[in-house]
């Protein structure tokens, strides 16, 4: 799939990578194509690609001149650190404000939250990233600059690749706080869209559940309102919220492409952006494969959670 898509893109990796002078020399182009196997018919290229893939070889990046796998090993944890923090923040804030919004239906708090969530959902992430970077770093100086650490701060010993976790494992608290300060702004920018999404969906899910007979029955049993809310209403609203959270995670990953480029975050999104603009096909295919796998696992996790939450979804 990723192979077909990347090869369908009109554009020639040879001309993109050789530089202006070399690409006007037919001999150099032919040599480049031969080296990278691009002179072979597509089915053969594909067979070679699969053969390499089976050995765990994703090819060599034409930009970094390193195996794509090595590049990805460095990029994936950087993105996961960012995306995990962003989805966590989104869930905390989005679900809470969705519940508050539903409980205050058509009152002031609800209106404010609805306008805010609409604003967050519709703001383009790249624009928000630029504005946030300009305001909080350039003007106010509140946020740390680009990258994962300040220049001069060395990365902690690689265990998980997540700098915050690795720093804690190594007991380097200064590095930990530095990594956190670098994480916050891009994570908040990524959070904006998903928070808006989760607020809106949680609100409608809770309103839906509040009108259910089983909530009225719970009240008829004389249970305190807090018990009704936590055990009956939230439990019932969880399935749609989890579904949206899974989708939101996908949206969040695609948001990293631009956010990482703007914040010079050495992650998957920035890597995808660079390799796509330079026709670095092995790298693009590698990214596609990784993103596809992440999607697969997120969906699997969502399905497993369905079974945990809703007994009717369990396989007998």
């Amino acid at each position, binding site marked *: 799939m990723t192979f077909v898509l990347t090869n369908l893109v009109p554009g020639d990796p040879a001309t993109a990578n050789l530089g202006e002078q070399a690409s006007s020399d037919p001999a150099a182009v032919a040599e480049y194509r031969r080296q990278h196997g691009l002179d072979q018919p597509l089915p053969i290229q594909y067979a070679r690609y699969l053969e390499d893939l089976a050995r765990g070889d994703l090819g060599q990046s034409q930009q970094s001149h390193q195996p794509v796998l090595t590049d990805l090993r460095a990029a994936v944890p950087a993105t996961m650190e960012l995306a995990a923090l962003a989805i966590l923040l989104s869930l905390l804030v989005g679900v809470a404000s969705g519940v508050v919004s539903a409980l205050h239906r058509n009152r002031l708090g609800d209106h404010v939250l609805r306008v805010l969530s609409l604003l967050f959902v519709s703001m383009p992430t790249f624009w928000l990233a630029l504005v946030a970077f300009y305001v909080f770093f350039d003007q106010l100086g509140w946020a740390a600059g680009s990258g994962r650490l300040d220049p001069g701060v060395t990365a902690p010993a690689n265990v998980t690749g997540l700098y915050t976790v690795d720093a804690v494992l190594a007991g380097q608290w200064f590095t930990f706080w530095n990594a956190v300060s670098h994480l916050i702004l891009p994570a908040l920018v990524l959070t904006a869209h998903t928070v808006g999404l989760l607020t809106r969906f949680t609100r409608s899910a809770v309103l839906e559940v509040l009108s*259910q*007979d*089983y909530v*009225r*029955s*719970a*009240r*008829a*049993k*004389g*249970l*305190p309102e807090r*018990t009704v809310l936590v*055990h*009956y209403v939230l*439990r*019932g609203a969880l399935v749609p919220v989890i579904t949206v959270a899974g989708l939101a995670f996908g949206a969040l990953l695609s948001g990293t492409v631009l956010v990482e480029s703007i914040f010079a975050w050495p992650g998957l999104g920035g890597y995808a952006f660079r390799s796509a603009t330079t026709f670095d096909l092995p790298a693009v295919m590698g990214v596609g494969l990784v993103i596809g796998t992440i999607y697969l696992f997120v969906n699997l996790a969502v399905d497993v959670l369905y079974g945990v*939450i*809703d*007994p*009717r979804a369990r396989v007998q």
Partner: protein
Amino acid sequence: MTEANHAERTRPQRAEDQRDILDIVGLTVALPGRTGTGTTVLHGVDLRLKPGGIHGLAGESGSGKTMTGLAVMGLLPPGARARGRVLLDGEDLLSLSAHELGAVRGRVVSMVFQDPSTCLHPMLTIGHQLTDHLRHHLKIGRKEARGRAADLLGRVRIPSPAEALSRYPHEFSGGMRQRVAIAAALACEPKVVIADEPTTGLDVTIQAGVLRLLRGLCDELGLAILLVTHDLGVMSAIADEVSVLKHGRVVESGPRARVLTAPRHGYTRSLLEALPGRTAT
């Protein structure tokens, strides 16, 4: 109205000397309308319920039967206003605060709702839903509550009650779910149960079983039931007294045998005539 007043004076033979456990006097309920003036759905409803008695509340859809039940429970839709008095064992429920009402609801008066497939939470076990209010109201531990819940399930004839506690509503049939809902309503040994169309949607043989169960509980526990139903057949099977509601007003009220065999109001007669292939007993 004169007929209704007359009917009220006609005391049923059953439990003659006992005090009313539930006494609804002049209950008027207004729902908020779009125009702001609101719609009055109940106009001065009077109803009395004796310990151990079943009072049937009949009437067609929209006559205000369910609203009466919800008003007693304090579960009217948001914005609705209730006037009059709802005396439960001498205490006016309409004057209670939300907190005080919470202590009465499910404890002294409880409700069984119409549709057993929607009134149990699909994602919580039967045990959870049978014990949470038990534990809240009676301040007992989890183990004791589960023991009581198993007894209750046995009483409503759910097979292997102890195992049923850890199962979910979708694993039971409609009739069984209704029995579970009845068990939940009975858990804290209330004095009054409002049963809103408890047998609608169940097939006839199961209906009879649920009705027998309700009657048995009244006789055995001294429970009083306000039985809300549009089905006069159900009513004639178990009610001691019958009130007929039309457009939010009680048009006729009295002992079952009298109301169903010699109705005084034209509306009651038309309800009786609407029964397919049935003659009033």
